[in-house]
């Protein structure tokens, strides 16, 4: 390799290194801002100001979904295994919404309850045919149908 080519290669590597360092610094600085949602544990640990909009993510706790008979009002608990937050919402829920499903609610924390104006379902990374899921359920496998990602844990 000639001297000019070596010099050009150094410049290419320099651009690459410079961009990587700059991006790493920016990413570290913005870590919490890039988070799409916070977990119920985060809510319990931090004193969040009322009327501050944020997204709450977790699993719909089993047996907590209360649907109103004559309106679109719905109430359910979002859990990460350690803490629960009660969510109230008026509107149509996504198709994937069910107990044990990952959800992300966007709204405010008021009087200890999370008033959501938008509820999104969060799909997990597991793909399998219905027969396999049934077989897993019959075998009493806990992973069937549930979230497997630890992102809802306290460290999320």
């Amino acid at each position, binding site marked *: 390799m000639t001297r000019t*080519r070596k010099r*050009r*290669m150094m*410049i*290419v590597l320099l*651009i*690459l290194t410079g*961009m*990587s360092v700059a*991006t790493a610094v920016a*990413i570290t600085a913005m*870590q919490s801002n*890039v*988070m*799409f*949602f*916070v*977990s119920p544990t985060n809510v319990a640990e931090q004193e969040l100001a009322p009327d501050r909009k944020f997204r709450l*993510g977790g699993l719909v706790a089993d047996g907590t979904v209360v649907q109103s008979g004559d309106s679109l009002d719905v109430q359910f608990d979002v859990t990460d295994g350690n803490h629960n937050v009660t969510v109230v919402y008026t509107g149509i*829920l*996504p*198709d*994937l919404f069910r107990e044990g499903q990952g959800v*992300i609610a966007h709204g405010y924390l008021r009087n200890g309850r999370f008033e959501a104006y*938008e*509820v*999104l*379902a*969060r*799909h*997990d*990374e*597991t*793909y*399998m*045919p*219905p*027969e*396999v*899921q049934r077989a897993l359920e019959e075998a009493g496998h806990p992973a069937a*149908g549930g979230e*497997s*990602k630890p*992102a809802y844990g306290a460290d*999320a």
Partner: protein
Amino acid sequence: MIWSTLKLWFHKLGSPPIFSVFARRVAPWLWAAFFACTLYGVYLALYVAPPDYQQSDSARILYIHVPAAWQAMLAYVIMAVLAAIALIWRIRTAEIMAMAAAPIGAALTLICLVTGSLWGKPMWGTWWEWDARLTSMLVLLFIYVGIMALYAAYDDPRKGARVASVLVIAGLVNLPIIHFSVEWWTTLHQGQTIRIFGESKMDPSMIPPLIWTTLGTKFLFGAALLDRARNLLLAQDQHKAWVRRELAPALDDRKQPA
């Protein structure tokens, strides 16, 4: 021996007339392989693979979405290698190939974003959210478009290619961000399903169509890259003798009365 053969081959392909002949001969085979793999993969995806236990038939869009996303990122890596060769060795064919790769990568990124959005509305309940995975993929599209715009902004294509190549190298940092976005941050997008190391979170019965459509996107990229690069070379060298020789059979055909 192998090294010197490879080196000779590499140098030969750097010559526009030889590259043009190579691309003209190889591209049709790649197109054929693309159509065969994709048609078979789509057949498996629609008729053979089982529906998902939660999403039922909506999950089938992944057989297009995931290969497009993978190839959009692989296309960038290939473009970056070509851009580095172009910057260091100033090989014109490498410059042309790097620039020819950008619109293909942009198209694949767009396919990924559109199919993801179509899936997101019924599954998540939204067409678009500004989470880390979706946003970093949109940034990839903007980088691709930026490279195309920068290249087109210069009257001298060689100068434009070199300037755009610097942007290609700089934009490389976005790739790890896209890949790790679902691990570093909480996102609406689910985590990685297919893993090369470790267990994939997909039932084996759903894997074959994914393999075929993924192979299809590799051939699509190769075919489109060779065709685009050859066309760029022919257009830029249109007044040179080698182009006249290369296109002579086609021109002779045109002269003949119908």
